[in-house]
């Protein structure tokens, strides 16, 4: 079956909020039907959101600010752990709960990503996990998180660094 295509690029460039459209589109999908999103950047946290609804994903970068994300149904729902990139080795974070907070810090000037992450971290429940995507490795953040008893897992992604931060119990 042909996937449903949603072109969000114009909307995103205007600063629009596409989540309601995406969730609406997901609800309208026929069984076995996929969703094809055209976006201006890779919406990493969306993978976990739709992953919990049983969608696997594939991201294709056509150029600067031009992404195609294909969500396919049928992937086993994976609420127990965050979506790791395909082929990634088992991470120390494998036993962690799914992130309850997502922060996209791309496009923010330092030290804004650090401020945001620490602000969100302080609101986390014990044992909960925060997921953030930064353009740069936030080197000044790590000592601060470690001083607050956080466990941290980082991995390089195509346009930055993905962090999983778990608040100590």
């Amino acid at each position, binding site marked *: 079956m042909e996937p449903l295509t949603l072109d969000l690029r114009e909307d995103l460039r205007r600063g629009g909020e596409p989540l309601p459209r995406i969730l609406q589109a997901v609800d309208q999908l026929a069984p076995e039907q996929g969703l094809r999103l055209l976006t201006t950047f890779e919406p990493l946290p969306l993978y976990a959101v739709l992953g919990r609804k049983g969608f696997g994903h594939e991201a294709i970068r056509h150029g600067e600010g031009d992404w195609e994300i294909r969500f396919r149904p049928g992937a086993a729902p994976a609420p127990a752990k965050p979506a790791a990139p395909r082929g990634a080795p088992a991470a120390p974070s494998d036993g962690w709960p799914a992130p309850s907070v997502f922060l996209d810090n791309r496009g923010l000037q330092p*030290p804004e990503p650090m401020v945001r992450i620490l602000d969100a971290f302080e609101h986390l429940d014990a044992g909960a996990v925060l997921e953030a995507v930064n353009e740069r490795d936030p080197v000044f953040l790590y000592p601060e998180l470690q001083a607050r008893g956080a466990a941290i897992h980082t991995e390089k992604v195509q346009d930055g660094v993905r962090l999983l931060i778990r608040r100590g119990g």
Partner: protein
Amino acid sequence: MITNRLSRWTPLFFLLALVNFVGAQALVLAGVTWPATSLGAAGTLIAIHLLVIGWLLLLVLGALFQFVPVITTLPLGSQAAALVCLVAVEGGLLGMLAGFLGVAGVAPRLAWLLPAGGGVVTTGISIAIWNLGVPLARARPRSLPGRMVTTGLAFLVATVTLGLLFGSVLAAPAAMPGLAPILGGVGEHALAGLGGWFTLTAMGVSYKLLPMFMLAPEDRGALGRWVHVVGATGFTLAVLAGLAAIWLPIAVIVDLRRAGDLAIGLAVALYLWDVRRIYRDRKRVSIELHNGVAIGAFAFLGVAVALAAIAAAVHRLDAVAPSLVFLIVFGWLGGLGIAQLYKIVPFLAWLVRYGGRLGRGPVPRVQDLVRDGAALPWFIAYQVGVSCAAIAAVMHRPVAFRIAMTPVAIATIGLAVEYWRAWHATYAGTAPNAPPAAAAGPVTKHPSLLINRGDRP
């Protein structure tokens, strides 16, 4: 897990660097140094080394001790080594300055202090190279800024080696008569130091800092790689062929030297073109004051290279050499230095003061630690003064030069006071109570979908 801490001694590097900068400017104002006197006069040698070792070297090493770990995401060899380096460089420099008085005949008994002080400075620099080399050698992949800083450090070694040879020959001319002609290589010493070391390093660090704070693409692609390769090749050719030509002034070596000069000019042109791209492609609409002021420094670099090209074409390079050194030291490197300090100092102060309080209550923003309205007049005075002084230097007007340098010296002190205030968060208490940054409104073009708290399972 990566743990990068703040470079503990960097603020002290900056403080001493500024003290040396002001001291050198006092000598300039007193008229005991170039361009009023010759490049070889004691006052000139003292002022030049106060500027390049006391001001620029300490400034750049202090900055690198902080930013090489950021570039490589690896820690320095040792924090304590940075302090030993600082003591050795500043202490050795003071010895060298006394030694210059000795070799100039003002106080002949002090001449031995020139090679001795130079040796102590060299020890300090060796410690710095090891300390920075540890993370730079381990970094994978090697980023463009990291590679450029590594090349810069290689030129630092070359500069210091040449300087030590000069110092030995000047202090004990009879000991090594065969080496005496190397004193004709002062131009190559300056080129290796101001060009290969400071300029390539400043370019490399700017490739990290400019995109970081203007939100421009950090990957400079082929153009960035060309800047590095052409620049490194140019400085290497120019220095080696220039030195070889002292003993063997044959046509092919002189041509190689010219080829090196051309490559340097090309690398600077490519770099300035790329910097223009960074400003043009930035996602942040407003340009912060430090990056606005930096445009002036880039312009001074372009003017210096253009002046060198014109002077070379009419065979007057030697006549404009003092003005070129002035433009590079005060306009380009000094101008970029005072501009970036205006960001680095409050950034470090903010991390030290408020890092532990983030997320636990309202804290000032980095920009609350500075007051642009107070700093802007100083930056303008500095750049206008340097521009006028450069014109006076080219026209050989020593009195006009010193008059033009007066606002530069006052502005340097004024800016040092602003850095001091930033470091002590003097303005933070008077800033409007800043909201937590997370609520400050998105600067990002990305929608709130990816910023909102996700649906809890």
